[in-house]
C-alpha cells in the first residue's frame, strides 16, 4: 500500500463515524437549491437552452456541490487537523512526509466531492433531470472537480493563520465562482468581459462537461476543459506541497 493512503484512510475512518449527520448537512443544502430554484424560479423562467430550468440547473448544482465539499474539507477541516488537533504533527514524525500528508488530504477532498455529488445526481435522475446513462461519467468527473478545488483549498490553508482567513477565500473566490460559472444561468447573456473572465474559473469548465453529459447534449472541447481542471489540480498540489513544507518543516 502506498503510505499516503493511510492519511486518506484516517479521514475515511473518522467520516464513517459521523457519516449520517455529515451526509444530511452536505446533501441538504444543494438539494434545497435544486428544488427551490428549480421549481420556484423555473416556473417563471420557462425553458433555458431548450430544456426545463430544473434540468439545466441540476448539472450546475452537481458541480457546485462537488466544489463546495472539496473546498470545505480542504480549508476548515484540513486546518483543524493541521493546527487545532496537531494530527499532522503526529504523522510527520512517522515515515510519512509533507507530500504524503498533502496527497492523502487531497485524495480525501476528492472523495468528499464524490460523496456529495453522487446523491444529487441520483435525485436529479429521480426528478427526470438526467437524460441517459452517459450521466454516470459525472461520477469520475466529480472526483476530478474535487481534486481541482481540494488542491486550491489546500493552498489557501497553507497560508491560513486562523479560521477567519477562509472567509476571504469563500467571499472573494468561491462565491463569485458559484455565481458566474454557468451554474444558475447561461453565460452568453452576460457582458463580454464576464464571459471571458469566466473562462479562467475552473467551475465553468466543470459545468461545460457535466451539463452535456447529464442533459444528453453533444460534448465539445472535452480535452480542453479537462486540461484546465487538471492544471488547477496539479498546479495547486505542487504549490500546496511547497507551501506546507515551508510552514511545517522549519
Amino acid at each position, binding site marked *: 500500500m502506498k503510505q499516503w493512503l*493511510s492519511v486518506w484512510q*484516517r479521514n475515511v*475512518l*473518522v467520516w464513517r463515524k459521523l457519516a449520517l449527520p455529515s451526509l444530511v448537512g452536505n446533501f441538504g443544502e444543494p438539494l434545497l437549491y435544486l428544488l427551490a430554484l428549480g421549481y420556484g424560479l423555473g416556473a417563471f423562467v420557462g425553458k433555458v437552452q431548450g430544456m426545463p430550468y430544473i434540468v439545466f440547473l441540476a448539472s450546475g448544482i452537481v458541480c457546485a456541490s462537488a466544489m463546495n465539499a472539496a473546498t470545505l474539507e480542504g480549508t476548515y477541516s484540513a486546518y483543524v487537523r493541521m493546527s487545532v488537533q496537531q494530527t499532522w504533527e503526529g504523522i510527520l*514524525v512517522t515515515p510519512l512526509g509533507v507530500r504524503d500528508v498533502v496527497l492523502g488530504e487531497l485524495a480525501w477532498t476528492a472523495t468528499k466531492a464524490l460523496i456529495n455529488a453522487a446523491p444529487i445526481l441520483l435525485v436529479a435522475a429521480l426528478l427526470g433531470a438526467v437524460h441517459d446513462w452517459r450521466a454516470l461519467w459525472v461520477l469520475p468527473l466529480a472526483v476530478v472537480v474535487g481534486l481541482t478545488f481540494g488542491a486550491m483549498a489546500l493552498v489557501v490553508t497553507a497560508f491560513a493563520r486562523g479560521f477567519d482567513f477562509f472567509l476571504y477565500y469563500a467571499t472573494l473566490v468561491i462565491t463569485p465562482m458559484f455565481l458566474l460559472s454557468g451554474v444558475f444561468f447561461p453565460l452568453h447573456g452576460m457582458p463580454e468581459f464576464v464571459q471571458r473572465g469566466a473562462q479562467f474559473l475552473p467551475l465553468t469548465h466543470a459545468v461545460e462537461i457535466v451539463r452535456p453529459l447529464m442533459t444528453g447534449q453533444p460534448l465539445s472541447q472535452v480535452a480542453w476543459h479537462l486540461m484546465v481542471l487538471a492544471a488547477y489540480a496539479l498546479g495547486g498540489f505542487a504549490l500546496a506541497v511547497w507551501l506546507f513544507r515551508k510552514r511545517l518543516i*522549519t
Partner: protein
Amino acid sequence: MNIEQHQLIVQVEDLCKRFGDRVVVDGVSFSVRRGECLGLLGPNGAGKTTLLRMLLGTAIPSAGRIEMLGRPVPSQAGAVRAHIGVVPQLDNLDPDFSVVENLYIYGRYFGLPRRKLEAQIPALLEFAALPERGAAKIGDLSGGMKRRLTLARALINDPQLLILDEPTTGLDPQARQLIWRRLRQLLTQGKTLMITTHYMEEAERLCDRVMVMDNGRILTTGSPADLIRAHIEPHVIEIYGPAAEAWLAREGRLAQRVECVGETVFCYAQDEKPLLQSLSGEKGLRFSHRPANLEDVFVKLTGRELGAAG
C-alpha cells in the same frame, strides 16, 4: 551496516540552527549509544525541542551533521523515522478516535499491516495500563492516561530509539511515577531513550547521562552523579525568609559558595556543621539541609533554576 545493528544511535557534529538572526542551537556535538538513556536538561527556550526536531528531520539544520542509526538526516529522515518512536511535548492523540483506533491508525502511518497491528495492540494497552479502556474516547481520559497512551503509540513500530519531549510535564506525582516505571521497563528491554525534561529528579532517576543545555549550547555532559561531584560541594543548605539576607551578610563566609535564586539563598559547603549551628538560633528564617543534586549543577552553570523560562 543495517539499522538494527548500529551501535551509535545518534551522532551529531557542530549542529547549528538559526531562525533569522536568532541562534537557537549553537554548535552542538554529541552521540548516543545503543541502550543508553540520555537526558537533555535546560530551561524553556534552551533549544531542546529544536534539537529534537532536527534529529527527526522536521527542522532543517543551518549547519552541521546528523547521523541517526547510521544514516544521514535529514536526507534519509523518512527511513530513519520508521525506527523511532516519538512522545511529543503536547499530546496530539487523535480526538476523533477511540484508544484502540488511535493505536491502529498510527500503525498504519508506519505501513504496518492490519493483522500485525491487531495482534500487537492488546499488549500495548496493557503497557499503557489501559486494558479496559480500549473503546474509550480520548476526551474521557485523564492527563496521565493520555500520556501513557501516547507512549504506547510511540512503541507501535517497535522503535530502536524513543524520543520523549517532556514526557511528564503537567502530570501529578503518581502519574509521573507510573511513566517512570514504564520508561525503566523499556530501558531493560534494551531500547535507547532521549528525554528532555526540566525535572532534575526525573533526570537523576532515569538517565545514564545528562546534557545540560542553555542558550543553544551544551554546558556540560556526564552521569548525574559525576556532574554533581565535579561541580558541587556535597552539602546544600537552602535558606528563605525575611531575615535570610541579613544572616547572609553576617555569616555567609561559613559557606564555600553562595547562590541567590529568587527569594532563596543556597549555601554550598564541604562541611555543613558550622552553618547549621549558626542558623539554628536564627529567627525570621527557615532552612533545610540536603545533599547536592542536578538542580544545583544547573543553577551554578546558568544562574537560573531548571523550571525557569529562558
